[in-house]
């Protein structure tokens, strides 16, 4: 372990030095032309008529109320001074045409402009986070000028639709018979995930999986006298959080789920034939193993070693 830490430390220092050096070599600003000057929103709207309604947009209101930036200056607050762009008069071959910042889903520099205002604690882990490293930028999910959602300036009507642009498989999982109330509008993707990045692998809004689950399921938090270690390690050992064919969003149906770890405890290891099922044998029917072991997340009872009490 010490060896790994030493190697990692050396790599960290090396990359830091390289990074700082690269900064000094690479600090250029291709989109900023020194000669460009601010010309005001009226000039912009002369060509960009479709943005006229931006007077009432959340960004314009935010600029005015929180930053004291009047509408007249709002376009160039993000896009930079526009005199050369205006002078190009739509001629894309004119170098001045590209003198303003033009944002698109493929543009990797979008975040630096947005973070002028939005680099708060919720976006602290964007850089190096899973979405940033997969090539996404702010405009992959948000639209400044033509948002489809009521809140959050999203490109789709809902958070779920926005996320499922890439995570269609998760959207499908939410339609399984056992699911959390996301389609019913009682939760959303951001209830558990921070799309702007977090310190965790899956962009969780808590430092680890179990800390996230017990935010709503505090009754499972314990700590208990009798603990079920797999449950303490990770709720996902048994549960599929986005949806499942099985009751309680289990990864497999009971008793087969339990039998993935518990082969021999006298009764559950019996293989079940149709007779048990048809006659409602108590090891397969209703809550199966939890007919007798209901406190499977942990028990406080002196006789609760097997979670029966």
């Amino acid at each position: 372990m010490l060896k790994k830490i030493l190697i990692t430390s050396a790599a960290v220092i090396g990359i830091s030095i390289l990074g700082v050096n690269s900064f000094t070599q690479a600090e250029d600003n291709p989109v900023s032309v020194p000669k460009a000057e601010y010309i005001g929103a009226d000039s912009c709207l002369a060509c960009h008529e479709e943005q006229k309604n931006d007077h009432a947009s959340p960004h314009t209101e935010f600029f005015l109320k929180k930053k004291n930036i009047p509408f007249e200056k709002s376009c160039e607050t993000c896009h930079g001074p526009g005199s050369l762009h205006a002078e190009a008069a739509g001629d894309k071959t004119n170098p001045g045409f590209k003198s303003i910042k033009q944002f698109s889903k493929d543009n990797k520099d979008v975040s630096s402009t947005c973070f002028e205002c939005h680099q708060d604690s919720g976006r602290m882990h964007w850089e190096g986070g899973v979405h940033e490293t997969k090539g996404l930028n702010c405009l992959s999910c948000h639209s400044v000028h033509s948002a489809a959602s009521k809140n959050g300036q999203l490109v789709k009507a809902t958070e779920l639709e926005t996320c499922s642009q890439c995570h269609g498989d998760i959207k499908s999982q939410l339609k399984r018979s056992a699911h959390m109330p996301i389609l019913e509008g009682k939760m959303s993707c951001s209830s558990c995930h921070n799309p702007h990045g977090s310190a965790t692998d899956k962009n969780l809004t808590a430092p680890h999986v179990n800390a996230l689950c017990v935010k709503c399921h505090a009754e499972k938090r314990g700590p208990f006298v009798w603990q079920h270690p797999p449950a303490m390690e990770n709720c996902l050992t048994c549960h599929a959080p986005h949806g499942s064919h099985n009751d309680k969003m289990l990864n497999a149906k009971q008793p087969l789920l339990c039998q993935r770890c518990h082969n021999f405890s006298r009764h559950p290891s019996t293989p079940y034939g149709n007779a048990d099922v048809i006659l409602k044998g108590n090891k397969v029917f209703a809550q199966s193993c939890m007919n007798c072991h209901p406190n499977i997340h942990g028990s406080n009872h002196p006789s609760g070693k097997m979670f029966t009490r």
Partner: protein
Amino acid sequence: MKKIFLRIVFSAVLGTGVIGPRLSLAEMTIRQEIEAIFQVKDINSPEAKFEEYREVPSGLAMEKYEMNAKSETTDIEVEIKDIRQDDQSATVELDKGRMNIKASWDQTPHLFSKETKTPLQEDSSGVLRAPDQLQRDVQFATATYVAAYSGNLRPVDLKTRTDVGSIELDYALGERLSGRLGVSETIKKGHQALGAAFTRSHIVQVAQPIDHKTYDSNLGLGYAGKTFQWDIGYGFSAFKNEIETITLDNPRRITDALSESSQGRLNTASDNVAHSGSMALGYNFSRKTRATADVNLTYMRQNQPLLPYTINTASNPTGGSNWAYRNRPADKADATVVNWVQDYRLVSQILKPLKGALRYHNFQQNNRTPEYTFDGSVGLDFNFSGTDTQNHAFEMKKEVIAATLDYEMLSSLNLGVGFDMNTIQRQHREVEDQEENIANFDLDYHPIKGLMVKGSFANARRRMDALHEEELVNVGETPGMRLFDVSDRDRNEGKIILQLTTAKNVWSVNGSLGHDKYKPGKGDLAALSKGGNAANRSTMYGLLETRNAGAGIDYDGTLSDRFSLFGYFDYQTDKGLQRSNYNSGGTVSQDAATDWEHEIQNRYQTAGLGFNTDVGTVILTMGADISVSKGNYNFVARGTDATLQALNNLPETKTTKQNYYAQAKMPVGPKVELGLGYVFEKYDVYDWASEAAPTVNTYGTTSEFYLSDSSKDYKAHIITAKANLKF
């Protein structure tokens, strides 16, 4: 709960008066929207799934009310949904100057069954009583329990409702400095199914009364500078259970006996508290290099009184004192766990086309719960055991060192590689020391304008230092068992997404494959020296492998100015193969003749198709959503045992939901919109674990009481007329 919400709203409004100038509605532009529906529904069964997390009302109902008031300095948003229904919610948000206050109240129902029946009456909170005469009749054999109880069942609504009231305050203390404060109260009440047993052949499933509250609060301060950012936070959570024990009558005994008690008592969730503190730092060394550090410390505590070993006053083994009164090693649980999580990340644009990241993660779960030695136990309130039992304080430590490198090979092609080294150390588990190395590969390719290809592949190898067979043998498992969450594992998984975007159409195709192969690793599969049986052989038991695959296609297109079409199809399958051993006698026996395997396969298909069109001023939307899921449980006898050979597969379980809808919206002026909608929903389910649930059942020598809470098929037609007024 409504009072809580009103208190919150009142506080919010009062707060604005205290903190800033009093609001004057006359200076504000107010926009309001109200939507009312009149609904007729016809459903052919009282199936709970239809309204699992919602209410579908009949007659006149208020769908939503929204109010937005704006002035040059102030925004007020009010949103109330599903008024007077079981899933109603309300939010008030005030944004004024440096301050943002949001107060909300939200109800979420969870309906399990409308047809539940039970012979046990809820006598007082947490006490479930059977009629004495019936208990007596069954005990003294004047009646069988089936005859006695079949006519004495009462309905109980098997549902819970969670109410959450919260208030959040964000306050800008400066240009870059902000503070936040949040408080919430969560109340959950209702009934849900709870398994309870008196012996292994006597199950009494009960409707467990639920009544608990959780109080949460958080406080934070954040600074968001261009170079340096930090955030500190503190959170407190307290869980209070009003019903900490469930006491239930035994439907077949009125008096206690050594062999079986007249009552059973179970512990339910205990009161507990959690404190957490967090700190996050972000620093830009330069425009190209950034470091972040996150530290979180959580202290969890539970100190509820320990119940007696049993409620059975006749539990009095030879030579011992009565277990109902026997001293316990402590009066209270005194359980404490401290979680300590650290994350450090460095991201740097090393050279123009290269971007690297290093991450260190450290998670420590320190369990300070005392290890008690109990004199024995009285499981199920009858089968006393004088063997000492000792709880163990499970704890673990996990470290991750991860590095990623992204290379922008072309402006349209980005490649990424990553390597994670995981080290896990545990106390009191079968595997204590473990390592896992994970290699990742990513592709992000935009070959032509509008076409995006994203792919990823990961390979992981998890290996243990040693497996402690005695931990398995001590709890009656076979030494050959490998627990899939800690055993050796080889994992391969890949995913690809293709997205084609043109001016009017978006096509998206995705596919994924995953395979986990579990291995015996170190440790003796037979372990004769550790209690294994001579008939053991070197065969691994438990989960052997899982496979998953998925493919989906999604289309969203505007075919003309007046017609847009959308559709999707998604197929996913999860397969698991596990091995076990037939045993009916209570001795360790993992001989080849009685080995068996189960292949479990869950298959999911979801599909949808619909369109939007304008017909004059009418906007018409029609579509269908269908989801099907199936579970197959294929049984294979691996040996020659005749009993096993005679067994069949378990039946397939299947759930199908079909939803067909049509909706028309028509403006009848600048402020009014009328709508008409029709939904047909069809639900079909077969599940052998709940199908045709009996309430009082006999199977062999067993007696069972179930709740009859199974899902059932339904067909529902819903016609809705809607009026939306904006003013």
